[in-house]
């Protein structure tokens, strides 16, 4: 075989491969596909509503969806719902922000720097296993009964999944990519920000979402400790006054807010992950 032949053939092969490397056509998210997720909750709600209406079941202990909606509407009308939602949202947002910041810094440091890992990781792993409720009395003693202790409790809950995932993910980054950074004489800071953090971004996003989920759980625990407003307070109030519809209204509000914030987080982060060459299941 002579070189001209190789070269000519190489070009002939190379040219169509440019076209073949085109990105696959993006699947438009049709409205119908999104609505599939509503079938299950709406179907269950409708079934319960029908069952109670036909007297097959008693709606006293498990109020019908229409009563829950009516309760929510009443709370919204009096302005209570807004103040509860805003109070809870603010706590979750602050706790999430502090938890994410601390978890990211600690996770990055302990993932990158072995000495730091040996120093702090065992302690953090031990602390991680303490149930959140166990902290409540201490946090009230240390930080008072008002907002600070609540935000810290939520931040603690958010911190651990972020810390754990990020430090583990950094240790799982492909050595070969890190070596490219070394060959270009990256500083430690550049190595972290330009290679390790981008490489761990997909895992990090999942960690953020599970951290946010924990944030929503911890806010209830936080609001159990003497809050005057918030969805958790509403829940306790419904319990103490024997109103299951109020309890379920609060739970419904938690579910909707949790779902909305998770969706927001997922869709914002998806924009940073378009580079991923990952499995896309068939429709």
């Amino acid at each position, binding site marked *: *075989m*002579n*070189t001209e032949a*190789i*070269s000519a*053939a*190489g*070009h002939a*092969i*190379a040219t169509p*491969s*440019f076209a*073949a*490397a*085109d*990105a696959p056509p993006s699947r438009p998210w049709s409205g119908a596909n999104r609505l599939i997720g509503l079938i299950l909750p709406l179907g269950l709600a409708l079934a319960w509503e029908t069952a109670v209406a036909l007297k097959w079941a008693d709606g006293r202990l498990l109020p019908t969806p229409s009563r829950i909606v009516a309760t929510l509407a009443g709370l919204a009308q009096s302005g209570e719902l807004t103040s509860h939602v805003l109070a809870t949202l603010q706590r979750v947002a602050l706790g999430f922000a502090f938890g994410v910041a601390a978890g990211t810094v600690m996770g990055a440091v302990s993932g990158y720097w072995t000495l730091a890992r040996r120093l702090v990781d065992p302690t953090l792993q031990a602390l991680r296993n303490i149930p959140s409720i166990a902290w409540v009395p201490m946090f009230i003693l240390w930080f008072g009964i008002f907002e600070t202790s609540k935000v810290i409790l939520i931040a603690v809950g958010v911190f651990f999944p972020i810390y754990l995932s990020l430090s583990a993910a950094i240790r799982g980054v492909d050595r*070969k*990519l890190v*070596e*490219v950074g*070394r*060959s*270009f*004489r990256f500083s430690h800071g*550049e190595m972290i920000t*330009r*290679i390790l953090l*981008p*490489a761990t*971004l997909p895992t990090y996003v999942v960690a953020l979402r599970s951290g946010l989920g924990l944030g929503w759980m911890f806010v209830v625990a936080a609001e159990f400790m003497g809050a005057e407003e918030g969805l958790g307070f509403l829940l306790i109030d419904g319990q103490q006054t024997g109103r299951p519809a109020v309890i379920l209204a609060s739970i419904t509000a938690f579910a909707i807010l949790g779902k909305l914030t998770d969706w927001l987080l997922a869709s914002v982060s998806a924009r940073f992950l*378009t*580079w*991923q*060459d990952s499995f896309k299941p068939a429709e």
Partner: protein
Amino acid sequence: MLSVTQVDKRYPNGVLALAGLNLTVAAGEILAIVGGSGCGKSTLLRLIAGLDSPTAGRIALDGTPVTAPRPEIGLVFQEPRLMPWLTIAQNVAFGIRHLQAGERTRRVSESLARVGMASQSGRWPRELSGGQAQRAALARALVGRPKVLLLDEPFSSLDALTRGDLQEHLLDLWGDDQPTMILVTHDIEEALFLADRVVVMQPDPGRIRTAMVPPLARPRDRADPDFLHCKRRLLTDLGHASGVARHPVAASV
């Protein structure tokens, strides 16, 4: 000039990968290092790149010891090793991140044009074929205009046609700045097609067995009888180097 003097490399597990290795590479020379797996050829390249340090001995570029990666030394790995979260242009810009944005953009497009990838600059690595990705890796290594370009089996994972294409392309690229090139390969034909000098290494412990300056005019023709003769000789050397005396004719098929 690059010099490797009495270099030993022992890994923490006790394996002696290189022993008493001496090698001098002239500026602008294209040197190929061939040898079977485990002969220490990739280890040697990592030492020259400054990614690893020798247990004993000295490596110097123009008199200055190489103890860590240096800007004058560019490196192409066996895999493209492009950052999947950066576009091709951003990947190439990795090599010159200290330059000002305008200058950087100019150099990146120039470098991508040199490897024939100008139209791919906005693509993601996952969208490229193997040959295109390796071209991008070449552009990234060359964008800083290194004095020395190290290539660790750069084309071994490509199909034969793309490989031949890229080998010729590499010679074109060399013609522009004429950097010193050290190419590690297990492909004797590739070594003979590209190199001014071919060094054969042997394992246990890794050392240089023979060296050959192929008496071949450029551009080289893989079907030329002299080319085939050189190939047969190198195969014989390699057979001895790995402890297996192969039949020269059988080996050249």
